[in-house]
């Protein structure tokens, strides 16, 4: 066991300073506070917060925030409309009284340091979140490269729902820290050489973080020459999903070798997946297998190795251009899901 790494983790753990400051009462307050944060982020994506949000839970019985005219609510769902009307210069302060009782204020500023003397304080602003304990700001370690807050990581039981979420929140704007690295430039015009591994790792990490009751594995052998990109095995049933990943667009090597993949690549991927499914039927006949073709679409119009910026017309040319599959395996076969295309937005200059 690496003691240095362990000590590093212990130092990053917010629970130790909370315990040292408040004892077991602080730990109980932490649990109640994080439950409230999760409930709030179930209704409100932290990426979309219009202002700074401060949530606190007192560790001393009977002490509460004594500001005039609080908005009192019993369900955090109702906090959404309150927060929505906040401006970027305002702060929403929310006190957790108990699991069915909260009070909120919209104010100009909050002295978190002062508040943290008797309360556990959580603050999030422009996707940076901290706990403040006895005046000290503690960074919150977020293991996921995909979500703005560790408390906003959703769970899904359906792979389709998870993939849909990934499409809109991660792939579309290359939000994932892993996925961002597949691009050569910040403008997201063309990919690094062989970006498929990065795409696979990004989607794999996402599914591992959010999919319940499933084992997710990368690069699983179906036949000797070509592994499937991701295999999902459900724990309670005899169901398997095979995910094949392809990318469309342009990539460039360090030696400036340019590769372009268009719709034909997606059709190739569909054929490949159909073949995997046939082989898998022989290998694992007792399991119900479903194939998913996932296409990361980074196509841009008129891109050359010299392109350094993109107009909106050229950058978004393919945004709504779906791939026309022939044959349409998703109609011809019961084990082939409708292919998913994740269009990845560029940053346009005009």
């Amino acid at each position, binding site marked *: 066991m690496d*003691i240095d*790494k362990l000590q590093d983790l212990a130092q990053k*753990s917010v629970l130790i300073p909370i*315990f040292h400051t408040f004892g077991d009462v602080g730990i109980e307050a*932490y649990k109640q506070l994080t439950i409230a944060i999760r409930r709030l982020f179930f209704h409100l994506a932290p990426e979309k917060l219009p202002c700074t949000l401060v949530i606190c839970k007192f560790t001393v019985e009977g002490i509460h925030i004594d500001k005039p005219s609080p908005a009192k609510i019993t369900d955090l769902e109702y906090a959404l409309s309150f927060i929505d009307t906040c401006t970027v210069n305002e702060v929403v302060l929310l006190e957790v009284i108990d699991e069915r009782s909260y009070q909120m204020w919209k104010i100009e500023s909050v002295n978190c340091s002062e508040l943290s003397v008797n309360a556990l304080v959580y603050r999030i602003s422009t996707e940076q979140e901290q706990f403040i304990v006895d005046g000290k700001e503690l960074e919150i370690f977020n293991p996921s490269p995909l979500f703005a807050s560790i408390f906003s990581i959703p769970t899904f039981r359906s792979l389709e729902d998870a993939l849909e979420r990934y499409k809109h929140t991660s792939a579309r704007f290359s939000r994932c820290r892993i996925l961002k690295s597949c691009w050569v430039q910040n403008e997201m015009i063309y990919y690094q050489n062989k970006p498929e591994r990065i795409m696979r790792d990004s989607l794999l990490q996402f599914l*591992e973080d*959010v999919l319940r*009751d499933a084992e997710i594995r990368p690069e699983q052998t179906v036949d000797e020459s070509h592994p499937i990109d991701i295999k999902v095995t459900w724990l309670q049933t005899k169901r398997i999903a095979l995910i094949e990943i392809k990318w469309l667009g342009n990539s460039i090597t360090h030696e400036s070798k340019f590769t372009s993949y268009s719709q034909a690549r997606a059709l190739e991927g569909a054929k490949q997946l159909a073949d995997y499914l046939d082989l898998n039927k022989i290998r694992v006949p007792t399991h119900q297998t479903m194939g998913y073709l996932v296409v990361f679409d980074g196509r841009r119009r008129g891109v050359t190795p010299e392109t350094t910026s993109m107009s909106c017309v050229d950058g978004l040319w393919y945004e709504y251009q779906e791939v026309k599959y022939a044959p349409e395996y998703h109609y011809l076969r019961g084990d082939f899901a409708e292919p998913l295309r994740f269009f990845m937005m560029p940053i346009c200059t005009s």
Partner: protein
Amino acid sequence: MVASAFFDVIAISTKLNTFIGGCSSPEIHLFAYLACLLTLFDREPISNWGYGFIVTENGNPFGLEIEKGVNLNVSRGNLEEVDGLYTLTKRGKGEYSLLSSLGNFVRREKYLEGSCSSLAPLPLGYVRQGIKSDEAIRSAIKLEQTNLLFTEASLSIMYTEFAEILDVIGSKTSNLIIPSSIWLSHRTKRGQKLDNND
């Protein structure tokens, strides 16, 4: 069926409900296994837990007594199953309230609470990944076959890990959420490193 497994199922369902709502059977097994592991922080023999676990070919801990416990709680009306997720009924809440005050089960509460409340600092996927970094579990996944858990080698590693974690924490606490979350975080990082080298 072992009485402690019956209690553990109802306790875990209650506690997980706060964090994730209804819970599935694999999740009940997973958190029962984690609770059992947490007894090592107090240097308790694993056999004191009352029942054992194996790991399935998909890498999920499985306790036969837990499975029986789930079935019995459902048939007694303590748990309700909808679409593969179990939630506590009103009857179940009453039964948990009664059982959790009994001497036999009070001691177990500490470990069950430590296990389930690891979901306070860590997301569910992370907790699962941390538990699955165990050598025996990784081996089961790789070979796609069931495996024994709590081998002498893996127990020895865990005793060492837990002792080091308690050293780092410093003060004594009965609240196992702290060592549990540090241990799971460490295990997840190690598991990810091993995956990259596979």
